């Protein structure tokens, strides 16, 4: 059997590198056969031996041939064995072995089906002479170190230093003392007769010894040559976060997390190293080794269950994930129990309130009436308000019609309980989590609980070790429910904002009032009684994996896992009575029930081999993987349902267009072969090779397979002898470089063949609906996009490892980008299948720096990460060099040579101050502008402002992203401050909050709009008021950088101040750890953008040029103030 495995390992793979399927089948067949035999084997097996002066190796081979057992030994050890002459007849195995080993310098042990041969240990001398040794352990700054373990080598004899760093241990003769302490280097000191041994411990860069999950295996941090970031449970645990996105934001340079909605439960946008492609930019998320379908899985996982996160950024590290790795990979490992650890019960909980940050304030109604008159007069129109009316508005004062009266300080709580522990052969981790985030909007839509988001998590992780076999099972169940208003959230906010401040939501009798401005809707009434929208999400995640230690160098791992999703939605709108009666868009009592189910399975089998030979270390991984995804859904829509229950009743109709079965049927699969070889010499010179070969169902036969290789190298300069003089200061310096090709296959399925779909509502004949059939055009040549990435980095640590950091530079060129071709005129008449057309360069850098300051009683650390990336479109499609989308008066442009998507329009040049100024300036033809109107730059100097003067106006993607964490621990107190931000980003905003009285839609001004030009206020920021006519056309109907805002910001994201009670006190209550904390989130923001959240973007992860423009009407940002408790038994 031993033979079988070794044969298989090299020969069968070598010849079949392009046939992962066959390899996989064979391996599994063999593996299954093996285990079937194992279970049949017993110690009762009999052996017959007849040998004369045989070497012990020959005896092993004979026994092996008669039983199911194989022998594991180090050939070196067998050299001392003498030859054997024996005659045994049908003797039980154990007895036979006893005879064979009777006078050999070897011993044996049986584990499962292996017989492990070891050298007999020389009998330890029972030395009776003892001596007592004392001493003090200090750090390099001569500060005493309490809690250091002092152990007599090769014994279990150990003590711990006291608060003064002193110890006292009784040891035998010639003893060697081992001093060890977390965060410091382990030091051995021989006892040389002296009764006193004082030791100075050096701080180590523990970081370097950290084991990092790198995909199908682990590596020591020090051995990694690629661009890999890790985020530990500690970084996540201190934040009162609700999902993994919040936990990761700002923790790793160039891991850019943005939001396009702040709604509870919304999935943020995540980019690693920015935008590398015009196609899909979502990174691959892998949880416990199982790939997931989308970044949404970061939303469902309980952040408290995360043990660590690895972010693979470059080709060197990510190539093991091949065709999906071009946008980087996020590897999440969840917590597990530890062997030989008594059961620990932990609870952590927090409770607090979310305080809405209302950034928009209306001006008073009287002032507004005055300004409105001014705007009308400036537009050549008659004033709308008489002085008497303005006085009346002044007397009337403020009403309740604003955002403040639609929101409240909504509670937010989170509770997590976990139990973990383990015996000698098994360990477990069980956790349950509960989150309840109430929505900031008041009301419940008419029935049930208030708007809000709840999430439940349950996780089990069980590991068993049986001899050389380790089995691990992980199960996770997540349930979430999100209830929101049935009304459109954006219109709710817009309606609250755009009505002048004198109006009220309700009269004295509680009637919901309407007014001519708000489209005859009352948002408060709709929130309270207009129905609701509810989504229910259930996810089951499972991972069964087993690792067989074949030899001490070779391990075989099999993994089977996946995710089952069930996504339910329920929408029910209800009629609301308004006064005077208005149009509630919801009066048809529609109920819409929808559901989407999907499953994703992932199967893997891989071998890990490690070998250290003198100064050479080699480790290798080779494996196969299969993934398959499928999903389908349905929806049912009924109108005129029961007004209270939403159930069908007399007159209820089914909507044939809103009701569908088999929606979004989708399936895809991927088969892969992957491998990795790591080599190092003296842990000083490193060379790695990683590859993956994927075949995807998304492409036509012949276009499916692709090979993704990468190579990396590393050099620890500080290990060189010539660096010796400086290594006291420069403790570690490592240069790294990698180059490789990664893929991206993230496009819709089945695009390689033309397909026809039926749909329900095409047309009608004689008042009867008929269905239609549409065509989806195909592209049989569709294949992977590939990203060639170069990465160069340096890791360093200085001053006894107090200061450590890393710096990386990358340059990635993505070719054959999968996107819709832009070179086909619309005369073609149909949408096009995606094609491999565009090319993008994404280059940038990232830096991390951590400084740790330890003194006797205070521990402080400062961590900073900063990154930048810049993308450039190198090719759009064929000869087409630009694409313009006009979501508003300003446009978005995608242009070769420029960042992927930019704002586009006219550049402003201040405001006209006088008629002379106007006369002397180039203008838009036909517009009679006035002083106070916007002046534009005549970029082509032709004396007229026209389309030829349009230019790129700004980049909406964040540059110079950063995160800063400060921690301090002193005398039971600890504090953490986390600041995160963006150094440069342009944001264009539109709508009533930007343009005064926008298109007649907005009816009031806001505090932030009042700096407009008047003859008395010539230094104004904004042009003179005008609601129509040439001024309005010039200022607000001409897309320019007038709409541009600086969305750079630094936000105090998290503050956490805790106190841990003295262990001596709490232990009397049976409590290991008791920590209470104060938690603050989003406490302050430094930004120039005052009336909208600078963190929110209108774009998705690919800065889609077809995105609609941002009229800041999204869910409100809130600050969180809460308390937390951590309890461990």
């Amino acid at each position, binding site marked *: 059997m031993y033979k079988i495995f070794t044969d298989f390992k090299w020969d069968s793979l070598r010849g079949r590198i392009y046939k992962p399927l066959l390899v996989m089948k064979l391996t599994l067949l063999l593996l299954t056969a093996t285990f079937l035999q194992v279970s049949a084997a017993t110690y009762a097996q009999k052996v017959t031996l007849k040998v004369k002066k045989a070497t012990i190796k020959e005896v092993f081979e004979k026994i092996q041939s008669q039983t199911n057992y194989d022998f594991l030994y180090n050939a070196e050890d067998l050299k001392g064995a003498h030859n054997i002459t024996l005659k045994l007849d049908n003797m039980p195995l154990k007895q036979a072995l006893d005879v064979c080993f009777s006078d050999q310098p070897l011993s044996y042990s049986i584990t499962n089906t292996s017989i492990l041969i070891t050298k007999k240990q020389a009998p330890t001398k029972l030395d009776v002479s003892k001596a007592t040794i004392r001493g003090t352990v200090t750090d390099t700054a001569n500060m005493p170190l309490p809690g250091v373990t002092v152990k007599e080598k090769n014994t279990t004899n150990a003590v711990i230093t006291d608060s003064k760093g002193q110890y006292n241990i009784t040891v035998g003769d010639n003893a060697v003392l081992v001093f060890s302490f977390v965060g410091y280097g382990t030091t051995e000191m021989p006892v040389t007769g002296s009764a006193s041994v004082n030791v100075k411990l050096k701080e180590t860069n523990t970081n370097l010894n950290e084991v990092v999950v790198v995909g199908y295996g682990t590596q020591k941090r020090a051995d990694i040559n690629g661009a890999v970031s890790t985020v530990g449970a500690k970084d996540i645990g201190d934040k009162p976060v609700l999902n993994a996105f919040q936990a990761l934001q700002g923790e790793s340079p160039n891991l850019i997390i943005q939001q396009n909605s702040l709604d509870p439960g919304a999935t943020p946008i995540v980019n690693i190293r920015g935008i590398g492609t015009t196609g899909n930019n979502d990174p691959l998320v892998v949880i416990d080794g199982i790939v997931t379908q989308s970044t949404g899985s970061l939303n469902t996982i309980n952040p408290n269950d995360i043990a660590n996160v690895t972010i693979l950024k470059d080709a060197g590290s990510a190539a093991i994930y091949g065709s999906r790795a071009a946008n980087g990979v996020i590897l999440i490992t969840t917590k597990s129990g530890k062997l030989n650890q008594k059961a620990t019960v932990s609870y952590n909980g927090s409770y607090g309130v979310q305080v809405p940050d209302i950034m928009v304030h209306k001006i008073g109604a009287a002032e507004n009436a005055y300004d409105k008159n001014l705007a009308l007069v400036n537009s050549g129109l008659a004033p709308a308000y008489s002085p008497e009316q303005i006085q009346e508005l002044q007397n009337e004062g403020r009403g309740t019609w604003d955002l403040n009266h639609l929101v409240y300080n909504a509670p937010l709580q989170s509770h997590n309980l976990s139990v973990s522990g383990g015996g000698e052969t098994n360990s477990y981790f069980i956790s349950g989590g509960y989150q309840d985030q109430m929505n900031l909007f008041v009301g419940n839509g008419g029935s049930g609980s208030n708007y809000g988001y709840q999430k439940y998590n349950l996780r089990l992780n069980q590991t068993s070790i049986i001899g050389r076999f380790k089995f691990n099972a992980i199960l996770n169940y997540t349930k979430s429910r999100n209830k929101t208003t049935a009304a459109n959230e954006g219109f709710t906010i817009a309606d609250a904002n755009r009505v002048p401040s004198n109006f009220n939501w309700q009269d004295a009798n509680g009637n919901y009032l309407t007014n001519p401005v708000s489209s005859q809707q009352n948002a408060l009434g709709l929130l309270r009684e207009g129905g609701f929208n509810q989504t229910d999400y259930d996810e089951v995640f499972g991972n069964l994996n087993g690792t067989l230690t074949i030899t001490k160098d070779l391990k075989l791992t099999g993994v089977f896992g996946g995710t089952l999703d069930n996504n339910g939605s329920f929408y029910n709108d209800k009629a609301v009575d308004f006064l005077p009666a208005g149009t509630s868009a919801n009066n048809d009592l529609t109920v819409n029930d929808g559901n989407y189910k999907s499953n994703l399975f992932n199967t893997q089998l891989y071998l890990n081999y490690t070998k250290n030979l003198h100064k050479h270390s080699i480790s290798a991984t080779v494996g196969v993987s299969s993934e398959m995804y499928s999903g389908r859904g349905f929806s049912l829509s009924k109108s005129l349902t029961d007004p209270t229950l939403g159930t069908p009743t007399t007159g209820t109709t089914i909507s044939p267009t809103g009701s569908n079965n088999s929606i979004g049927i989708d399936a895809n699969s991927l088969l892969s072969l992957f491998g990795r070889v790591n080599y190092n010499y003296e842990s000083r010179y490193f060379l790695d090779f990683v590859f993956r070969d994927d075949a995807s169902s998304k492409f036509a036969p012949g276009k499916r397979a692709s090979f993704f290789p990468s190579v990396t190298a590393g050099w620890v300069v500080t290990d060189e002898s010539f660096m010796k003089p400086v290594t006291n200061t420069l403790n570690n310096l490592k240069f790294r470089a990698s180059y490789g090709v990664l893929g991206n296959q993230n496009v819709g399925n*089945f695009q390689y063949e033309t397909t026809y779909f039926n749909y329900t509502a095409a047309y009608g*004949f004689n008042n009867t609906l008929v269905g239609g059939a549409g065509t*989806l055009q195909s592209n049989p040549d569709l294949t992977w996009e590939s990203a060639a990435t170069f990465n160069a980095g340096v890791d360093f640590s200085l001053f006894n490892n107090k200061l450590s950091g890393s710096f990386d530079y990358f340059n990635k060129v993505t070719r054959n980008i999968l996107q819709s071709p832009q070179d086909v005129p*619309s005369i073609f008449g149909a949408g096009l299948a995606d094609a491999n057309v565009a090319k993008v360069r994404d280059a940038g850098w990232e830096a991390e720096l951590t400084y740790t300051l330890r003194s006797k009683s205070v521990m402080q650390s400062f961590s900073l990460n900063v990154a930048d990336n810049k993308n450039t479109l190198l090719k759009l499609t064929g000869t087409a060099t630009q694409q313009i989308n006009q979501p508003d008066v300003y446009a978005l442009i995608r242009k070769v040579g420029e960042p992927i998507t930019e704002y586009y329009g006219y550049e402003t040049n201040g405001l006209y101050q006088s008629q002379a100024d106007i006369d002397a300036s180039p203008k838009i033809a036909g517009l009679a502008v006035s002083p106070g109107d916007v002046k534009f730059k005549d970029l082509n100097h032709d004396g007229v402002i026209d389309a030829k003067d349009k230019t790129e106006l700004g980049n909406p993607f964040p540059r110079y992203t950063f995160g800063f964490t400060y921690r301090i621990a002193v005398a039971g107190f600890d504090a953490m401050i986390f600041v995160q931000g963006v150094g440069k980003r342009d944001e264009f905003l539109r709508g009533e909050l930007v343009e005064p009285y926008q298109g007649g*839609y907005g009816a009031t001004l806001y505090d932030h709009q009042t700096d407009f030009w008047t003859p008395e206020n010539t230094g104004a920021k904004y042009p003179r008021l005008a609601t129509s006519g040439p001024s309005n056309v010039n200022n607000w109907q001409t897309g320019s950088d007038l709409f541009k805002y600086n969305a750079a910001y630094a936000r105090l994201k998290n503050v956490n101040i805790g106190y841990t009670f003295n262990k001596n006190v709490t232990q009397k209550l049976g409590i290991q750890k008791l920590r209470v904390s104060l938690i603050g989130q989003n406490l302050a923001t430094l930004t120039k953008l005052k009336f909208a959240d600078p963190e929110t973007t209108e774009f998705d992860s690919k800065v889609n040029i077809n995105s609609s423009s941002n009229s800041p009407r999204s869910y409100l940002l809130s600050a969180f103030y809460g308390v937390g408790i951590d309890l461990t038994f």
Partner: protein
Amino acid sequence: MNFLKKLFIAVSIITAITGCKKLDIVPTDRFSDATFWKVDANVYSALYNNYHLMYNSGLYFSAEALSDNAYSRAGDVAIISGGNATAATGKFAGDWANYYSDIKSCNEFLTFVGQNTTLPKDVMSRMIAETRFLRAFAHFNLTKWWGDVPLVTDNITPDEAKVIPRTPKADVVKFIISELEAAIPDLPSKDALPASENGRITKGAALALEARVLLYQGDRMADVVTVCEKLMNDQSTNGTYSLNPSYTDLFSDKVVNKTNNETMLSLQYVPTTYTWSDFFDFAPLSVGGRVISNSPTQELVNDYIMLNGKGITDAGSGYDENNPYVGRDPRLTATVVYDGYKWDNGGGVNGTTKTIYIKPGSDPSDSPSNPNGPDEYVGDRESSSPTGYYWRKYFDPNALASYVSGLNLHLIRYAEVLLDYAEAKNSLGQMNETVWNQTIRPLRVRAGFTDAAALDYPASGDMTTIIRRERRVELAMEGIRIDDIRRWKIAEITMNGYAHGARFSGDQTTDNGYIRVQKRQFNPNRDYLWAIPANDLSLDKNLTQNPGY
């Protein structure tokens, strides 16, 4: 331990099985090229997709605001009507793509339908004829707006689309006419159409479109007469058409709108399932409107004659500028909502009448803190009309909330054929009492005129003006006016200067107190043709731009 081993074995077997999943996955909710056309039901579905792409309510109503009949305050329609359009104007690209998408769908149909071997031959020829009609209609719309356009008669590839040149307008028109004539024999007459197929294309529709296409050319009036006479005089072959007794019911009555003898081609809708809701942004706020995106102009209102047949400016018309809506063509009330209008909810659930107060300060509900009632004209309030008029035509008393309506939108009515005939005859110098009594008179009778002075063949007056005015008011809100002013080459007059609203201006000295709603410009050297969309121009090197862009 045994349990775990068994588990591991089980896992391994599952792994082995799932690992065998093939990469050749076939979509289970779509047909492939090989199977689609063989299924009869699919051929019908493909045909209905051709219908689906024919036209839409947005195109239908926005056309009105491009003309001097209406004003739209925002968006590309305002830019085009203001004379500020460029090759980058979004509506040009959108409409262009819209028409070519139907052409693509039709060409795919004509290319592949032969793969079906099971449909009866006559059924197949009829479907082909319908598709050829639709393809011709799309080309007609293209050439109407852009002049010379790429004539796409094959199922072209993306690469072919990159090099296709423009075909001269005359050749495009020749193609349209020949396609329509080729389709007519295979199309059923309206009378032969079973009720269930009400709305399918008929001989009558094809002939009426042919009449319109010929009329628009300006130099084919004799042919217009020929075609119109087929429809007027050979109804046993081409379908029995007549004017519906009620003008209003054609646009508002849920039964008459769908089943009448006047409709020749309608954009078909189905209540609650296949609908349009443009009226949500036409109707006054107090009767369920939202924002006003399209409203009638004073210029349109002025063209409604008096009940005595005289224009409002004619001597002895009896028109009173201070009481302007009295004694007017009844079609004014059927089409336009004016100050003091008695809004009839149409006998639906509410069955009530409401007065629409538009004149500033006229609404009894006005109060100091809320000085302007919901429908009153206020400078530039989005929720009230900028012209002081609202649309009434196509009001659907049976609409759902948000004016979700299933009423059909008429593309060609028999009334238009009569007007085509009158215009062609007049332009051939053949207008006389007989023709008048076949055309204008029945239209006016149906509209509700009773005064002989309005009904009888006029002894005096400019016949061209009379016919054009009749055409304008009869077909108002149906998207025809913009075509007419362009082909009559009067757009440079009607689309230059201010478009006006009612006499509610704060400044009663300018334009006699009529609201100036938009300053319009029309460059006769440029604006009679739309710009070829800039993007297509840059992607197809064989395209050329129209003059002036």
